């Protein structure tokens, strides 16, 4: 569904952000896009949505080049940026204005999601809402568009604690086999249960792209005593519960994926983890 091949991109000619970046994503997944600040997560989402053009390489989204901004593609992509633009419109008018562009938009779902987020007064001006309320409005709209590709940049930023769990619930309920969701985030703990594939962007390249089940098949995430044999440990960090460790899962143990630990392990021990996943 999304195929990026040998993508080169930089904001200045001297310093390239991506050099030969390759990415292949299939529908039916919720991808978590992780990376350090400035790694290019938002840039990658913009290239996929056609807001930025790669300087070299080919981008293919649903069989077409996103940079052409063909309405046939745009009506199947919804990009929720971290910094949002909300026009001076009442909530009910917001849907009235933008929904006709999305053929699969469901007003019923839109209202249902708004109700779940407790954004009840549809007569309020959307630009007068708080940042969190605006985010809830746009998340509700994004999900109700029923586009095949949903790109969410830091969707939980600004959401209060109950809203984060509502977000997880509505996201999970709106996912299907035809839909591809990419969530770029730093707040992995908020989306832990939602993400089923992890993509890690580092130094302008995709250093990791694996589904959760493969990750837990190859790696084990455990809390160990401090006297653990560090030779077998790929990454460890101290925690009040003990020592959080990531190890190769040579004994086929079952463990729960800790995305934050995984990210740190990959950044710290990139080569070894790559070998494990290639074996």
């Amino acid at each position, binding site marked *: 569904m999304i195929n990026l091949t040998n993508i080169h991109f930089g904001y200045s000619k001297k310093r390239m952000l991506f050099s030969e970046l390759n990415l292949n994503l299939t529908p039916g997944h919720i991808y978590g896009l992780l990376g350090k600040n400035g790694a290019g997560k938002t840039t990658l989402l*913009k290239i996929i*949505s*056609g*807001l*930025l*053009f790669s300087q070299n390489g080919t981008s293919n989204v649903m069989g077409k080049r996103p940079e052409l*901004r*063909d*309405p*046939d593609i*745009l*009506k199947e*992509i919804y*990009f929720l*940026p971290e*910094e*949002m*633009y909300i*026009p*001076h*419109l009442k909530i009910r*008018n917001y849907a*009235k*204005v*933008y929904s*006709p*562009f*999305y053929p699969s938009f469901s007003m019923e779902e839109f209202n249902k999601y708004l109700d779940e987020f407790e954004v009840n007064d549809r007569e309020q001006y959307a630009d007068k809402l708080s940042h969190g309320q605006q985010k809830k409005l746009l998340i509700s709209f994004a999900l109700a568009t029923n586009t095949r590709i949903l790109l969410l940049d830091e969707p939980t930023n600004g959401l209060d604690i109950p809203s984060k769990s509502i977000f997880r619930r509505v996201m999970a309920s709106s996912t299907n086999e035809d839909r591809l969701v990419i969530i770029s985030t730093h707040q992995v703990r908020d989306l832990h249960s939602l993400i089923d594939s992890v993509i890690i962007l580092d130094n302008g390249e995709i250093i990791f792209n694996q589904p959760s089940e493969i990750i837990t098949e190859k790696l084990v995430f455990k809390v160990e005593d401090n006297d653990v044999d560090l030779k077998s440990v790929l990454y460890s960090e101290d925690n009040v519960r003990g020592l959080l460790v990531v190890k190769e899962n040579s004994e086929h143990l079952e463990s729960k994926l800790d995305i934050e630990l995984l990210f740190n392990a990959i950044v710290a021990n990139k080569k070894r983890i790559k070998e494990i996943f290639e074996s």
Partner: protein
Amino acid sequence: MSTISLNRIQYLFSKYFIENWKRDLSNFLILFIIAGFSGYQHDASLSLIIFVILAFMYAGRVFGMFSYKPKGMNYLLIPASTAEKTIVNLILVNVYYLAALLFSYMLGVIFGNLLYSFVHNYSFTWDFVKQAISFDYTTFLPLLLCESMLIFGSIYFKRKAVIKTFLFLFCFGLLIMIVDSSLVYFLTENHSIPFSTSNLYMETSVTAENSFFNQYGTLLFTVSSIFFILFFWVLSFLRLKETEV
């Protein structure tokens, strides 16, 4: 590839009117009040200046959205083609807004006159109204040309767009004046013919038999204006296609 769809054009218009009707209405009201005052004073000059300023401000803000990144992103991601977005803007700038401004101006002038005749106990006459609204198409061509350049400037220049656009307008105006002056100079046999310029429109005082410009001046002006208006709109369209946010 569905490049142009009437449905999407309709949605874009609907989006525009729902989002902007209050702002537009307040602008039309401002012009109506000033034109009413002009009608009352029997002097249309101030309201015509406001008319031009409002038209320029409108054109300048069409692509001004790109100065605020999230707004620019929102616009580019609307599922409509660049051609559809350009067509909608072209109609809004060249037809809707201009017609609505003209209508507000005319209504204001008539209202002002009516008020004058009522206050001063005169019988209402159409003389001033007729004079104040007697435009022909050559009056609008320079306006449309400037608007098309403002639109181009608003999308072409990313930083300090207003200053750069006005500089560009000034340079372009200067260039046109030089070209036109040279044309008059070379196309008339008498090279010492006096001429004056008004809104790029040359009025020569040469005699009919030796004045090629006098015969074809209006035609040349009309054709070149339409050419440049279309030229800048096409440039804006191409620029919009390659705009990255």
